[in-house]
């Protein structure tokens, strides 16, 4: 039993089914996946907070009826911007490295974008190479580092994805300064 958790699973990508959160019966599946992987203990209220308010941003991945990955998010007003936030993302070990997390994140982000979010943020531990690479490929930048963010003393990165800006207004910058510095640059 223990061993099968580590072993790579043989499967075809087309066998993975994705669904968005569809009710109470999904909650224990999400909780058991996240509890296994993330160090912080979340109370059931935290899960409910997310899945009840933003069920459309929560997705689950199944393989042959077994839940193998999930994403939990929220969105809302934050300092005059409307932003999405990815709270939890997990794919169990035997299924990693096959694009499942990327698919889950992509689905959530699309819904956020359609709902009018201007940006998406999340935090990831500085040594979580997998998560950082994954989000980097999707266009997230490391906007900040958060000192001792986790209770174990580890720093975190705040990652941010900014959706394309509205058309840029012509700038009223002093023209000759621009020229001067540009000339100097390409000298």
């Amino acid at each position, binding site marked *: 039993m223990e061993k099968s958790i580590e072993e790579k699973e043989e499967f075809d990508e087309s066998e993975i089914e994705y669904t968005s959160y569809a009710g109470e019966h999904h909650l224990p599946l999400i909780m058991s996946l996240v509890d296994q992987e993330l160090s912080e*203990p*979340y*109370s*059931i*209220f*935290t899960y*409910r*907070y997310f899945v*009840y308010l933003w069920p459309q941003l929560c997705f689950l991945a199944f393989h042959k009826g077994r839940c193998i990955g999930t994403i939990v998010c*929220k969105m809302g007003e934050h300092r005059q911007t409307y932003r999405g936030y990815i709270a939890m993302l997990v794919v169990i070990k035997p299924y990693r490295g096959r694009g499942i997390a990327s698919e889950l994140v*992509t689905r959530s*982000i699309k819904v956020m*974008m359609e709902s009018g979010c201007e940006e998406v943020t999340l935090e990831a531990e*500085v040594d979580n190479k997998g998560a950082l690479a994954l989000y*980097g*490929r*999707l*266009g*997230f*930048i*490391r*906007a*900040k*580092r*958060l*000192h*001792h963010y986790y*209770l*174990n*003393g580890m*720093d975190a*990165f705040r990652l*941010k*994805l*900014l*959706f*394309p*800006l509205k058309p*840029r207004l012509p*700038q009223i*910058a*002093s023209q000759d*300064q*621009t020229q001067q*510095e*540009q000339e*100097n*640059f*390409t*000298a």
Partner: protein
Amino acid sequence: MQPVREEESSSIQNDPGNCSIPSGDSSVWADVSPLLSAACTDLQEGELIHGDNFNLFAAMSALEIMDPKMDSGMVSAFYSIDEAIESGFAPVPISSDKTVNVESIIDIMDHLLVCEATWHMGHSLAQTVFSCIYVLRPERTSSQALLHSYCRVIRATCRAVVSVVSDARTNEEEDLLTMTYGLPFNGDEDAKGLLLLNAVEETICRQLRACKATSAKRRLLEELEPLQTNPHLEEGFCKALLCRIRFRKHFLHALNCMRRPQGRGHELARKHIASCISELQSLLESAEFLRSNTVNNGETEIEERTTASGRQPIGFDSTLNKRLSAPTPPRAIKLLSWKKAIDYFVKLLHNLDQICAFSLEPDLDFVLQFVIQFHKSRPDLVSRAHLQLLLVQDGKLYGRDTFLTICARLLAIDVSKNHGLHLNEYILQLNQLMINLLKILCANTPWQRRKLGKILNDWSIFNVQMGINVGQLMQQDTSRSQKNGDRSLFILNHVYGWIEEQIHWVALRFLVLGFELDLYSPSEYCMVYWYMYIILWKLHEKARLRVLIVVHSEERKAKRNKEYSRDMAREDRISLWVLLIQCQTSLTQGLTLMIAALRNEGMCLKSQGPFNTENEKFTQHFELLQKASLPEYDAYESFSKSTAHASLDFLPAYECFRDAQKMAKDIKVGYANDPDKLAEVRGIEQVAEHNVIAVNLLCQDRSLKVSLEFTHHPYFATAIVRRS
């Protein structure tokens, strides 16, 4: 799930009773039992009733009662400290066997050192040092001079550290360290600990002498009782205790000396610091002896232990104060090992020594360079707090020089005659900005970067306002001659010019910290170097202007007054610094063009995700700089234009690296006596040199694989070329 509505809850009978807690202005106490019991029959486990104001914070703060992962009120080993004591968990004396007693005390000392280091590194005092019952209740051990005085001194040391850190308070990082949760600190009693510890040290010294003495002499010392009962172990135990006691003593002295105003205790502090370091060495050496008395339980494990002997110490329970640390959930913390704790203290002491060795020159260039150098070893909170308190005291640099005199010195102008100037509103504001900046520069680097980004805007608004105002005054004032002694306006104008330089310095620090904090990914290097180039270019321009002003005014002073001694060392120092800026300007220009060429030729990854473009990344990374009008034009457009056509065939990049290399050679000569600076410049030189070679190779063979690495410098990349 039914949310509770206002009407329902207010229908519950009011029962004012005799409540001792006031209910607040617009509310009354109500009995919620009927509501709760009604809810209980309806709700399943884990369901919740929530109001509109139920947010993430509320959800995350909710506790599941009796879940050991969350409920800090749950009884663990002991219900209370008293219960632990009654059950014989921390006996006094620890053992009636004097040898065992001494051994156990040494274990406690070692474990306390580990606790202290773990506390400094960001865990709560309650779960570390104060997890020791002997520290929590020192009065119990008053008959045991050794243990008692040691614990008292530990408490006094904790107090000293809490006081430094809370006096320096700038951000939330300090909270955990200074939170004492009503732990019992008794200043007066603890202060006496040092006297007692001295007496104990004295006795052990004599015991050590006695056991080493020849039998003839020994008779003289006969009235002296040995430390413990086994003569073969006497020397080892005495030595092990002495270094531990002396470390504590010198450490507390060092901390106290460092708190004297204006750095007056620094010289003495350095002596104590040196003693501390050598005692720590003796501590390490004592490990072999202490371990030889323990039954061996696996060599590998020793590395993880919290005591030199490898034994578990007596009298510690990290769950004792759990209820004091609520509302944070009760996390088990991982203590450092004893070896790591010693490493930690050695590093801390080196950092403190760096601070004490700093010559308190009233020269801002000097201060800023020192602070940056200081950060290179990643100093911890305790040493950074000390540095901050040294730099800013009573609103003055070192508690001594006003920022007006500091600025004046930067520009080699004399402000002693302009008495009104220190009350000038711009000078007052500048004072505040400078204090703020220095404090920020002493904070941890992640926070420092965020804060620097934010204050750029304050600085630039201030700069604009001052510019307008000074400009107007200058126009009104052209009639007045400058010879009447009041040169306030002239000074203000110079200060205004310098502020612009300072803003660019802050911007550069902001960008560089991004590398240190690992915030940039390789696909973003091109834009980052471009931005650094723009900032450096302007910084160089401003700084060079200032050097000219300084040199000019010094020359004049020297001409007018034959006695005047020019501070040539200082003039050389800033000229050299300006050259270094120029060298870095060339280097970043070269890097930008090289990476842009590699991208344009498809030899390097472009940053392109499915949801956005490079433009959005640029905006995000440099938002704060652009807000502060650095530069004043549309930076992204300028960046795109100037990099769009870079190619390997036409390569100014090559020239830039060559220039940087040449300048670095000259600068090295100037820094011959400064090993830190020399190493930095050598790194820059190597980056330039290797990139020249890489560019040459790449021009000849486009099939080569190239990657950017930080082999020679922490933030200037070297192109590494490989055959695929």
